[in-house]
Structures are given as structure tokens and as C-alpha cells.
């Protein structure tokens, strides 16, 4: 890793990273990649999110779906762990709760393959700082 030597340097790297991530996530081509984030904080792992994450990585690969599965922190919905967030190309992210292996399979087959929503969506009910910026 190269060192970041100045604030200008930092801003440039940020710009590069952002466009890289935007390219990865916001591609609206139908064959664009699916992004799956698994909440892997203590609460999630205790409820089995590790197994779900491994399952998702394996199964998406087996079923030839081009997806990025990554871990993230607590989404705050501890009552509904394990929780995952799925972003289909060109779509708003959708959070699913109570995701066991069976549910994960359903999400792959119905939502990721056919864009058919699956029961158990957790609606986003908070504001982020970015949204506030637009006000």
C-alpha cells in the first residue's frame, strides 16, 4: 500500500475509490453486478450470519450469478438478525431480515434472479447525512 501524503492526495484517492465503487454498484446494465451486504456484527454472527454469508458466496457462484458479497456492521435491526442488504443493478437497496439458509435460497431464486420481492423486507426508517445534504 502506498502512503497517502497530503490532503489533496487523500481527496484524489477518495475520488478514485468512489468512482470505482460507483462503477461497480451503479452500473445500470442489466448484466451489472448484484451487491449483497451481510450484517456481521456480534448480534448478526450470533444469529448465524456467518453461515448465511458463506452460503451466499458459494451458492451465487454455483448458480453463476455475478455478485459481490461483502460484510458490514450492524444495521440496527437486531430483532431480525441475520439481516442482509441486496442491491440489484439500477435498483434501490432492499434489506431482508430473519435470513436463514432457506430464506437466502429464496432471495437468490426469487429476488436476485427474477426481481420478485420476498416477504420479510425491513423498510428503511432513518435519515442519512448525505440525504440531509440535499435538503
Amino acid at each position: 500500500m502506498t502512503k497517502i501524503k497530503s490532503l489533496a492526495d487523500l481527496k484524489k484517492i477518495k475520488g478514485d475509490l468512489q468512482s470505482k465503487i460507483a462503477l461497480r454498484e451503479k452500473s445500470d446494465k442489466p448484466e451489472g453486478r448484484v451487491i449483497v451486504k451481510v450484517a456481521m456484527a456480534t448480534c448478526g454472527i450470533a444469529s448465524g450470519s456467518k453461515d448465511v454469508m458463506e452460503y451466499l458466496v458459494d451458492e451465487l457462484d454455483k448458480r453463476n450469478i455475478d455478485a459481490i458479497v461483502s460484510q458490514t456492521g450492524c444495521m440496527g435491526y437486531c430483532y431480525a438478525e441475520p439481516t442482509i442488504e441486496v442491491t440489484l443493478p439500477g435498483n434501490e437497496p432492499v434489506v431482508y431480515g430473519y435470513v436463514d439458509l432457506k430464506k437466502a435460497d429464496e432471495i437468490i431464486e426469487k429476488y436476485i434472479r427474477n426481481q420478485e420481492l420476498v416477504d420479510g423486507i425491513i423498510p428503511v426508517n432513518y435519515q442519512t447525512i448525505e440525504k440531509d445534504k440535499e435538503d
Partner: protein
Amino acid sequence: MAKFKMHMLVCGGTGCRASASDMLFDNLKKELQEQGLQDEVQVVTTGCFGFCEKGPIVKMIPDNTFYVSVEPGDAKEIVAEHVVKGRRVERLLYVDPVNKKQIADSKGMGFYKKQIRIALRNCGLIDPENIDEYLAADGYEAMGKVLTEMTPEDAIQEMIDSGLRGRGGGGFPTGVKWQIASKVSADQKYVVCNADEGDPGAFMDRSILEGDPHSVLEAMVINGYCIGATKGLIYIRAEYPLAINRLKIAIKQAREYGLLGKDILGSGFDFDVEIRYGAGAFVCGEETALIHSMEGERGEPTFKPPFPAQSGYLGKPTNVNNVETFANVPVIYNKGAKWFAGIGTEKSKGTKVFALAGKINNVGLIEVPMGITLREVIFEIGGGIKDGKKFKAVQTGGPSGGCLTEKHLDTPIDFDNLLAVGSMMGSGGMIVMDEDDCMVAVAKFYLDFTVEESCGKCSPCRIGNKRLYELLEKITKGQADKEDLDNLRNLCMVIRDTSLCGLGQTSPNPVLSTMDNFMAEYIAHVEDDRCPSGVCKDLIRYEIIPENCVGCTACARNCPVNCIAGERKQLHTIDQSLCIKCGACLEKCKFNAVAII
């Protein structure tokens, strides 16, 4: 395979289900079928929207129309109007309580403003083990700005202007704390992050460290620059292994990028961070005890002054801030003190993260602006009380806080208001209790915790809390008399006034606040030998109600001590001399034939 053009999200949260959202769901499906639209419009149930007051909720996708208080009978109209004709059903739209305007798009609705994620901004969004994702989310930019464009004095002033107060519980103004530490001259100063989260039921700091460790590191560098410290220490309890692991990864990655270490971003400023492990003692959340523990001494508090800002770690000036406090810092520099001070109440700015737990539907982590009411937190964001039970109290501030009741539901939550009603903000644990909780037993639970966690250095806390616990035990056993209640209160006052540190000074709070708010329950225990909630085992007995018992033998089969006698299809009886009051019979009986007397 059909591709749906439209989706209807029907809330299946407990609150909405109680107002017939499942019937609404069925009706919507039926209507779509009748119109032959079942392959074009999909109906799905969702978790709680956090807006139970206006339930059931239906959200239409992709146009984000948000219908509230929808009844099963409205299904026909929604399908006929919205789906078929593409016209919104005006009468079901949400009406803004302030300007009385109908709001169609859920994004413009006030209830989204009930939660603003500042400290939790990256939790659940970025990969905590990848610094690049943090950098892409404005990470380390605040640090860069402070280190290269601001003087320490200006940076401290910005912090003071923001009005940020310590999120660990005390609520001391963060900027002022930094200023004091900056004015003491010394050859070495330290920045300490207090990650010794000890309140029962609290997990905010753990979640921040697990979800966004870099935000804390970034803030520590800023803090170091402001006060003139080049070393940072994170004091974290060893029972948070995942948080520790992610912190280690974060520190390593930040060093590799040169964001920790020598000459950060060419500013000439050096700063590095180390982790120190605690053994999980509650008292080590107190800053002087924490510092002693880091020095390898016993984790015991010492009298202040001198404050850590004057003489802290290894006798050097030390600034101690909590995890959540630090997590707020980078945002304040990125968006400005004025922006931050625009959120919250007059004296408590910004947001607070709460760990919602107990008898509540949506147990979880929430971040709300200061000044929100308990009612909004519990009945809207929290989704109300489990199993439709009645709300009784909410405990805030952990073992140092108190219980708030129905009459406090509309009190705006901030540091000063909570103190005024006999509780405190604390670190942010919020434990909700329902009608089945005995408040004397709750007070006893917290005292049990305090007795266990008292370090033993000063006698009021070491001995006084033990005696308090014994008095409470006497009450829950029905052996106390009225004089004991007076003694209980007097002892509370003595402990509060004479203890050395915050632990002892606040430990009587659970007792005092339950006595203030639920005196009738104490009196029932003392005068009538009765526990109104049926919790205190020595004051209750399980009885079989002859009219309801059908003789199914379920209770007898599940009794662990075989104290229930009775033949099949005949009345059963409980042998009170053998009963251990475990409640298994009550749980197993399907005929309401077991009662707590």
C-alpha cells in the same frame, strides 16, 4: 417468469398486524387476482416501518406512495384507483401534522426524521475491514482538514461551537474538555478512547467499533492534534473480541496508508494508537479507574481533582472520551459545527444512539435526535410493547439511571430533562418493561449488579449497597415492615452523598426512582405480602382453578418436581409444600386453569 411492474409493501409488523394488516394483505391479493393483475403487481409483507401509530402501512413501489391507516376494506379502492387508473387514493395519504398537507412520497415524511444516523452513519453500509470503503465515504477527510488547514485552537473552538456533549453518560461538553487538556503543558499527553461499555443491555459502542472502527481512529487523531498528544490508547473490554479484531485491522490499514504514524498527511504531526484490554469491570468505565487499570494498577477510582486533563495516564495530561463521542467528531468537521448544533435541543445537540431492549417488538440499535420523546422511541421506532401488553416503565442509564413511567412518555429526551425526572442519559441502554415486571425486583436486579461491580474502595458503596440489596431482598420475600421502607430511602441518600465515584453516587437511583414512581408496589409487598405483578416467588403461589381444569395432565407431566397430582380427566392439585414456583404448569396449561395467586 413474470416480471412485476409494481410492488405493494404491506407492513407485517406486530403493530400493523394487530390492526388487521394480514387481512388487508389477503384482500389486496384477491383484488389483484380479480382484475387479472396478479402477474404484474406483487404484494409482499415487510417488517415494521416504525410508524405503528398510523398503521397499517402500505407502500407502493416504484412510485414510493405511502398509504397510512389502511383498512382491509380499502384494498378494492387501492387496486382500482392506484394500480388500474394510476391515480393516488388521496384520503389514505399521510397528512403532515404540522402543515396539514398530504404527503405522497414517503421520503418527504417527517417520520424519517425520527432517526438520523450520524454516529452510525457507516454502520451497516461499509465493510469495516476495508479502509478503502471508509475513504470513499469521506473517511479521514475531516482529519486532513483539521491537520493541514486549522490551528488546534480553531479546531477546539469548532468542537465547542458544535455543542457536542460526552456520550458516555456524564454529558460534559467535549470541546471544553479538550480545551482544558490543551492548556496544560507537558512533554507528553494522551488521548484515551473509553470503550469499556458496561451497562447491562447496552451495545452501542460495540456496534460502532464493529461497524465503523476508522471513525474512532480518525477522531482520536483530531483530538490528539487539538490537545497536543501524540499517543492514543483505546481501552476496550476483552469480551468484545470482534470489535478488538476489527480495530486491529483498522489500525494496521491506517498505518499502511500513513494515516497513523509519523508526519500524517504531510502536516508534521505524529500520532499512533494502541489497544489496551480491560477485564470487563463496570467501574473501569469511570475515567480515573480506567486510567489506573491501563497503568496496571487495580481498577479503582480516585478522587477528582486532579482531573485526568491535569494528571492522567502515567501522571500526564489525558483526555478521555467515549466511543460514540468520537464517532460524532469527523462529521462535525466535515459538515460544520453549525450544522451539528442545528440538530437536537437547546442544551443537548446532535443525536444519541440507544440500544433498545426488553419487552419491545423492535429490539435494536437506533439513533435519534435529542429532544425526541420516549413515546416516539418506544411506540413508533420500537414498534410498541411485545404481545400487546401494557407499557409500565423504561429504564435508562443502566445501574446509574432510573425508571421512567407513563407520565414521562412525552418528555423530550436530553441530558438535562432525564436528570430532572430522576434518571439519566447514561451510555444509552434503554430497557423497556411491561405490566408483568415487578419494580421491586427490577431495583433488586440492578443492586445485585452494583454489589457485584463495586470495587470496594469506599465503604458507602461497598457496604451500603450490600445492605440496600439485603433490604430489597427482605421486601421481595415479604419479611419487611414499613420501617424498612424508610430505612431503604435513608440509606439511599447516604450512599448517594458519600460515595467516592460516580458508581456509588448513582447506584441508589434504580431504588429511588422505583420508590418515587411505584410506591404502591413497595407497599403491597410490605403490607399485604403481595407481589402485584406475580414475580416475587416467595409472595406467590400457583393454584389450579377447578372450573377450568379438564384433567389433561399436561401440567403434571411437565412439573420438574412432580408436585402435581391428579388422574386423567380429573381435577389436578398442586402440593404447595413441594412446589418450586418455576411456572412450567402455567406455561403448559392450554385451558387457563393455572393461576398465580
